């Protein structure tokens, strides 16, 4: 177990929200076709309110703080917020499109001791990237920002969300990341809008393309290992937690709403009405999320993928049941291994299938 895993275990035992994702605004200078947010400002928290939330998070034991949006630099007080966060000694990670980051902003970000910055790049071709962001010139500006950040010695990751409009361009973006000397991360997940609107799910890449991505060694490393059939789940799997959402992780919107995760919009309280710690410790919604184990998932607990699936309880919640399957993850498990999920079989009217190979060594043979 790594030191970081040990800390996660300890945070879980102590009920500490080790990682918090705080969206400081939903306003954005891009209008990405797949974005799950609504960009009008409906009364986002003031500078003082955000600083107070940061104070509360530091008090609650939060170590990893992701500042995101919207576009973080749309807030004129962004650097004041960042400075306050760093004074409180959070490990700060930023998510940005980089469009408003020039040499001076990169220098200030570096001076404030930010650990990582993630910049969204959709294609190495301006006509594709800019068509997704709907901001002419955005690829050029985002790439320039990455160069400025890189020159400051900051750790930058290019986040490449894959959708129908750019599905053929991941190799180009990966090559761009290599040229820039930054990390590349591909994400084939398109989520419903935070208000539940599912219209953007049409942008998800089709199964055959997902299959090709999962069998591409440039993207997944060891294909045989990545696409291996799932081993039979043991008791530890069935007693396991679906993910860190609500256990050691939380999400706060620019309006102060607290959710278990950015992908899990279950209203659990609001920091404008209650202290964060009260919400974290006592919210009935978070307590409900925390009570769920893999064995409690009616369909997924019968699935051969239960121990290896990337099932997102937030996506399941948005499909109508936080204990139900997340069909996007069923599809991923299927395309990765070729083995249909219990949910897929159930929908097709077939009984869930056990592991394809299960060998029981006869007693006394060893």
């Amino acid at each position, binding site marked *: 177990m790594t030191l970081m895993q040990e800390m996660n275990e300890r945070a879980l035992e102590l009920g500490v929200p080790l990682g918090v994702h705080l969206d400081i605004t939903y306003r954005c200078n891009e209008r990405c076709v797949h974005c799950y947010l609504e960009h009008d400002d409906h009364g986002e928290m003031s500078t003082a309110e955000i600083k107070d939330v940061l104070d509360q998070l*530091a008090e609650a034991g939060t*170590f990893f703080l992701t500042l995101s949006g919207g576009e973080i630099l749309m807030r004129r007080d962004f650097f004041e917020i960042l400075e306050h966060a760093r004074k409180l*000694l959070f*490990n700060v990670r930023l998510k940005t499109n980089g469009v408003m980051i020039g040499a001076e902003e990169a220098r200030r970000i570096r001076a404030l001791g930010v650990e990582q910055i993630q910049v969204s790049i959709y294609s190495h071709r301006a006509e594709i990237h800019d068509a997704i962001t709907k901001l002419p010139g955005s690829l050029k500006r985002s790439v320039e920002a990455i160069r400025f950040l890189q020159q400051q010695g900051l750790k930058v990751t290019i986040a490449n969300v894959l959708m129908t409009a750019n599905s053929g361009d991941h190799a180009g973006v990966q090559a761009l990341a290599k040229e820039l000397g930054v990390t590349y991360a591909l994400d084939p997940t398109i989520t419903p809008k935070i208000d539940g609107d599912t219209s953007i799910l049409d942008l998800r890449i089709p199964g055959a393309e997902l299959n090709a991505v999962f069998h591409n060694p440039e993207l997944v490393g060891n294909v045989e290992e990545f696409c291996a059939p799932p081993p039979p789940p043991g008791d530890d799997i069935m007693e396991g937690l679906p993910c860190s959402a609500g256990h050691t992780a939380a999400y706060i919107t620019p309006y102060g709403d607290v959710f278990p995760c950015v992908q899990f919009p279950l209203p659990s309280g609001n920091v404008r009405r209650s202290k964060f710690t009260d919400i974290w410790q006592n919210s009935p919604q978070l307590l409900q999320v925390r009570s769920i184990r893999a064995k409690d998932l009616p369909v997924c607990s019968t699935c051969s993928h239960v121990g290896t699936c990337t099932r997102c309880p937030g996506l399941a919640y948005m499909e109508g049941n936080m204990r139900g399957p997340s069909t996007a993850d069923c599809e991923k498990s299927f395309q990765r291994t070729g083995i249909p999920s219990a949910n897929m079989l159930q929908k097709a009217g077939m009984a869930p299938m056990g592991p394809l190979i299960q060998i029981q060594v006869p007693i006394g043979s060893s």
Partner: protein
Amino acid sequence: MSQKYIGRSTAIAARLLGGEMMVMSAADSTFFTLNEVATVIWQAADGRTPLAEIIERSVCAQFDVEPALARADAEQFVEELAAHGILLVSDRPIGEAA
């Protein structure tokens, strides 16, 4: 023997978790957890209090440890963290941690 002063770098992230301090260097993402004794030294590293005084007042007073052993352990701890740039060491008081 000259005094030694220690101060915390500002280029780190740190948080107390269950009595132990988690520290991560922003420069190279090296992650440390400090035990209770090291946490006390870390918290007292204000750049103004001599290390010897920190050991005497904070470590020996709170933990059942021989002063000589505490000094040796503290020296080693300070050296390790200084090598990663997360503790600053000087023979003069440190005004502003860098």
